[in-house]
């Protein structure tokens, strides 16, 4: 009884490959036996496409406004431009080589990174399919790609909040190119690359079919081992991450923390008033993030079924709980319940429930939200002030901290005893999704290992990249330009002419 499918995204295209390889021997033996490869259905396809659109809406205008509202008016456009252009830039990188690096086999480096076999989306057409998490269910590979692409687009955009109001635009673009290439795509590969349910089922069935013939059995078992080994490192550790808590949130949170330390504090930080210039924009952003996050979390199920619906409910109530949690803790601690508190709590809840969305139950998700709201509040209000780093928009305090709470919480709340769905198992009943035995220590340790690797990879990698960019173009604008505001200094525009 082994575990597999510990993360939620399949190896796009392998389904097709597997299907093709099935057809060949079948033809060799008897035409009548040829199994037809599974076809996408319109419901799942529509579901994944609209989920992708929603994730894009999270980034633009959602995240752009959430961040933009929090900076001073003179830097509003700089933040909006950064998020908008990052999305544009990464979309091109993604179809050029990003998808291939994340979701193809990387040969000798396969534990860490994929290869270039699908660079320029070579070989992908309207008939290509990608595996989901159910045996025999596939979606068009193009749908899988666009969905994945939106994740790659939003992740570097999350980071900009940490050093907003002082970063040079050209530096940010260069940073983005390097960061997605050397940090994001490897992380995506390590967490989400696997062979898919049908490949595993086929290999398991082949072992059974091999019967008593020792040689055939050995060959089949070797094949099964190879199929199972064809996965990213964190995936192979058994770490669960439904929708990207490690790849997206911890990854961005750590990069942000490193970035804000490398760039240094804003001029006047701690001395001048720097209130958010428009909490209205921040509210719009938070609301669109909440709405769009259903695409992110439920969409990560890749199929429109009961699990997707449960992921959606979990996303909703974890967010509700974290909103209330931050609000009431702040009310008690600071005397007033603020809109920014409610909105920040909501994001903390969304972050925390991301890895858990399809694994925890609704009550577990509420608890996760309650914890995330309170703990992130403490990080953003107390810990940050204590250490004195200037993480402008609390990328670390919300995405980093919330992501870690969620990643470890997932390892606990997945337990069926706590209302979770249990750890998926594609092997014991090949062709069906079974539930593996839950072992607290093993699972939580797998989660912690995933978190640690993410922290180390993103921490060291981002640091090196920041330093390289600083040498090449300089990370920070001059003091004069920072005073003037990045909108005029960097972009030649003003946000408001009322």
């Amino acid at each position: 009884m082994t575990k597999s499918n510990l993360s939620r995204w399949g190896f796009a295209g392998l389904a097709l490959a597997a299907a093709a390889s099935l057809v060949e021997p079948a033809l060799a033996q008897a035409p009548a036996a040829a199994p037809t490869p599974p076809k996408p259905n319109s419901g799942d396809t529509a579901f994944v496409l609209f989920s992708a659109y929603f994730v894009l809406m999270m980034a633009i205008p959602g995240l752009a406004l959430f961040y933009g509202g929090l900076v001073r008016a003179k830097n509003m456009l700089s933040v909006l431009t950064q998020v908008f252009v990052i999305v544009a830039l990464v979309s091109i990188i993604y179809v050029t080589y990003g998808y291939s690096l994340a979701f193809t086999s990387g040969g000798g480096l396969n534990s860490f990174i994929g290869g270039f076999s699908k660079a320029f989306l070579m070989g992908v057409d309207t008939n290509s399919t990608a595996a989901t998490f159910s045996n025999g269910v596939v979606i068009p590979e193009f749908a899988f790609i666009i969905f994945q692409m939106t994740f790659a687009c939003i992740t570097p955009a999350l980071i900009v909040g940490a050093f907003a109001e002082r970063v040079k635009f050209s530096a940010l673009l260069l940073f983005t190119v390097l960061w997605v290439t050397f940090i994001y795509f490897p992380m995506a590969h390590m967490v989400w690359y696997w062979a898919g349910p049908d490949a595993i089922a086929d290999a398991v069935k082949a072992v059974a079919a091999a019967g008593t013939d020792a040689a055939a059995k050995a060959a089949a078992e070797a094949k099964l081992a190879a199929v199972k080994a064809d996965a990213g490192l964190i995936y192979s550790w058994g770490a669960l991450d439904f929708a990207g808590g490690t790849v997206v949130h911890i990854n961005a949170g750590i990069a942000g923390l490193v970035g804000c330390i490398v760039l240094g504090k804003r001029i006047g930080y701690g001395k001048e008033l720097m209130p958010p210039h428009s909490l209205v924009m921040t509210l719009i952003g938070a609301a669109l993030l909440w709405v769009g996050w259903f695409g992110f979390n439920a969409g990560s199920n890749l199929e429109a079924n009961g699990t997707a619906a449960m992921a959606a409910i979990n996303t909703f109530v974890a967010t509700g709980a974290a909103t209330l949690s931050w609000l009431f803790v702040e009310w008690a601690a600071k005397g007033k319940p603020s809109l920014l508190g409610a909105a920040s709590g909501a994001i903390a809840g969304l972050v925390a429930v991301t890895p858990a969305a399809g694994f925890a139950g609704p009550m577990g998700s509420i608890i996760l939200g309650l914890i995330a709201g309170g703990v992130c509040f403490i990080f953003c209000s107390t810990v940050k002030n204590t250490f004195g780093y200037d993480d402008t928009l609390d990328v670390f305090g919300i995405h980093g901290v919330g992501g870690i709470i969620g990643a470890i919480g997932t390892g606990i709340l997945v337990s069926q005893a706590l209302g979770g769905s249990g750890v998926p198992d594609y092997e014991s009943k090949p062709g069906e999704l079974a539930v593996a035995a839950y072992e607290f220590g093993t699972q939580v340790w797998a989660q912690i290992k995933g978190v640690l690797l993410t922290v180390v990879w993103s921490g060291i990698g981002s640091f090196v990249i920041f330093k390289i960019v600083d040498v090449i173009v300089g990370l920070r604008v001059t003091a004069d330009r920072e005073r003037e505001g990045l909108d005029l200094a960097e972009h030649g525009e003003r946000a408001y002419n009322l």
Partner: protein
Amino acid sequence: MKIVMAIIKPFKLEEVRDALTGIGVHGLTVTEVKGYGRQKGHTEIYRGAEYAVSFLPKLKIEVAVSASDVDKVVAAIAGAAKTGQIGDGKIFVTSIEHAVRIRTGETDIDAL
């Protein structure tokens, strides 16, 4: 001629305007300003950061009047703008040496 400049609480504008028209003053200019004085401000909290904001929104009213009307005007403003609570504001009177109505070129008292 004089300019009567008054700093008042924003929600008193309509009453002051009415008081002035009541005594025959039909022109004035209003500016949004922020005032600092005895009236205490408030604290704003944004995530970790607490800001003590001591500047409060006020309106500045400027009325050009003939020297003979000054007392009447000051009294009218003072009466209408008063709530009796701290922060009601101030009235200052300065001289103006010359006034022109741009449209007609009329000057001094005729310009008002």
